[in-house]
């Protein structure tokens, strides 16, 4: 038994990737929807366990754990290990919420839904552990197209989801084209597409390498939903159901940001590439913060509000990446965790309460007090209130920005927090200080089980803010073992 355990640990990177793929196949072939849900829970949970073990070994133990020489090749770096663990944990929470969709859809199509969710997770994990750019790009596309398929499944109940899926397809196609072109330019410059070769080899054509990485980052920015490339986000997330919103809005956005962080960690160390990339990321980040915040203020649909708010958060992550320093990358990872927790809380609470339009939040605290509390925790984390993880992320960004002399970044995050006071405050005001318009009794919403991941995310929001030691040490350790040695 001990030997089996050690063998599993030796192959934890492979198992973290393989369990969702195998789980997807088994879920799709399951004769019943309930069985497919159980398979999804087991597969996502196993992936989360292996991811956590991998992250522990890479971050806590230090250095790169040995991997078998034969078989699938991985490049294990701090960012990849950190994000693999985070993404698999987020997917497990989404899978927990997915159980309530069995009642909503009467099980129709759900085996495929869970299979696509697991494939999306596998894609993002593959991108985090990829050895080369080709594997990374294929993994990203697997994740993206699987998420589109999951959204399309909801199109039977909500046809606007199909329209959102088409926009996602457009964004994905343009992003893919740019990524392929960027990878070709990187190959021209370095003569290799292996990330470890890129990290150590000098660029023969620095300008081409800068252009290549720029194209890759812009291609990924489509998938992040960074402004002005975010046209698909409200169209896809607005009509999405609970499971789709969690997979697209939390898993997808965190995955795309994680891949961007990882790629930038290799590029930041390159002399000719780092500066140009930094400028591009800073611009994308600044514009995303401003426009995302303003659009969140004007949103009248809860999921769209959450989508715009998370775009603004993603802008903060891009600015952290743009700093190009270990402090910046550590701040980016903390921000991604904060964003994921807030997203889980908001989308999960929205699904549990069956709320679409903002006015439906009126009086939620009386109808569903725990759901209201979870939504509130997510909202105050978006504001960046002290003792929340959102405050932690912003603080780390401001620290890193001041250290690099980027005072404009401090201004941008201050603006984001002030804007969040408006839109998150509006949520809290409706939930606690308004009465419901309808006097109808609350129906037993099938999505109420979606509350449990939201509750866990809300607990993470608070606990990480009060006692942030573990998270901060993990993020610092991840940034200290960057792929490119930045």
């Amino acid at each position, binding site marked *: 038994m001990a030997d089996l355990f050690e063998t599993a640990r030796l192959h934890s990177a492979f198992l973290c990737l393989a369990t969702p793929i195998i789980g997807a196949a088994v879920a799709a072939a399951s004769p019943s929807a309930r069985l497919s849900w159980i398979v999804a829970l087991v597969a996502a949970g196993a992936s989360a366990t292996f991811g956590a073990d991998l992250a522990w070994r890479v971050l806590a133990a230090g250095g790169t754990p040995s991997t078998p020489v034969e078989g699938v090749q991985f490049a294990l770096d701090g960012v990849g290990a950190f994000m693999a663990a985070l993404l698999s944990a987020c997917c497990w929470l989404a899978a927990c919420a997915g159980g309530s969709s069995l009642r909503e859809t009467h099980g129709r199509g759900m085996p495929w839904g869970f299979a696509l969710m697991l494939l999306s997770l596998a894609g993002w994990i593959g991108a985090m552990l990829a050895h080369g*750019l*080709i594997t990374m*790009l*294929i993994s990203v*596309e697997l994740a993206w*197209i699987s998420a*589109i*398929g999951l959204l*399309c499944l909801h*199109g039977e109940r909500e*046809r*606007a989801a*199909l*329209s959102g*899926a*088409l926009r996602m*397809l*457009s964004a*994905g*196609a*343009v992003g*893919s*084209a*740019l*990524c*392929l*072109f960027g*990878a*070709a*330019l990187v*190959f*021209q410059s370095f003569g290799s*597409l292996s990330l470890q070769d890129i990290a150590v080899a000098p660029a023969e054509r620095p300008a081409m390498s800068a252009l290549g990485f720029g194209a890759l980052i812009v291609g990924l920015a489509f998938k992040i939903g960074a402004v002005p490339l975010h046209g698909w986000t409200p*169209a896809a997330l*607005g*009509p999405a159901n609970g499971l789709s919103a969690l997979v697209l809005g939390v898993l997808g956005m965190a995955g795309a940001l994680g891949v961007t962080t990882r790629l930038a960690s290799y590029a930041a160390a390159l002399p000719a590439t780092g500066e140009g990339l930094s400028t591009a990321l800073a611009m994308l980040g600044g514009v995303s913060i401003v426009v995302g915040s303003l659009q969140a203020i004007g949103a*009248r*649909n809860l999921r769209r509000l959450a989508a715009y708010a998370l775009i603004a958060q993603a802008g903060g992550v891009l600015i952290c990446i743009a700093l190009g320093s270990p402090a910046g990358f550590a701040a980016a990872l903390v921000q991604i965790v904060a964003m994921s927790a807030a997203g889980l809380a908001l989308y999960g609470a929205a699904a549990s309460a069956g709320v*679409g*339009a903002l*006015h439906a939040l009126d009086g939620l605290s009386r109808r569903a007090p725990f759901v209201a509390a979870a939504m509130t925790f997510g909202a105050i984390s978006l504001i960046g209130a002290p003792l929340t993880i959102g405050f932690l992320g912003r603080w780390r960004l401001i620290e890193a920005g001041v250290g690099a002399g980027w005072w404009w970044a401090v201004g941008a995050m201050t603006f984001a927090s002030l804007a969040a006071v408006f839109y998150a405050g509006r949520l809290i005001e409706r939930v606690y200080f308004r009465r419901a318009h309808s006097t109808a009794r609350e129906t037993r919403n099938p999505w109420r089980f979606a509350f449990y991941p939201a509750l866990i995310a809300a607990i993470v929001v608070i606990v990480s803010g009060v006692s942030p030691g573990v998270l901060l040490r993990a993020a610092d350790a991840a940034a200290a073992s960057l792929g490119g040695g930045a």
Partner: protein
Amino acid sequence: MGFEDIPARVASIAGVVLMLAGVIASGLASNPAKRVVAHVMCIAGGLLAGAALGAPVALLLSGAAIALAYLSVGAALTVRLSEAYESSAVEEIDAANAQADAAELQS
């Protein structure tokens, strides 16, 4: 710049132009089917430019597989959209969605 570089440079420029044309066409397309074709055009442009730059065969094959995936998903989505909206015009689909949003806000 040697003369032997010219065809490669022309091909890479053509690839970039095709990519841009695909992006513009995707934005202006009046129906989902045309939009899907524009997507494939965009990816093909990226591949053409990459091939001209000497990208490895593995990257080109991967790109081709990605293009095929987008074409397949796009075709299926086009059929689903026309069934759901009983229309193939993007404008009518967007108008129907806007109407549904307005109705949700008023409910």
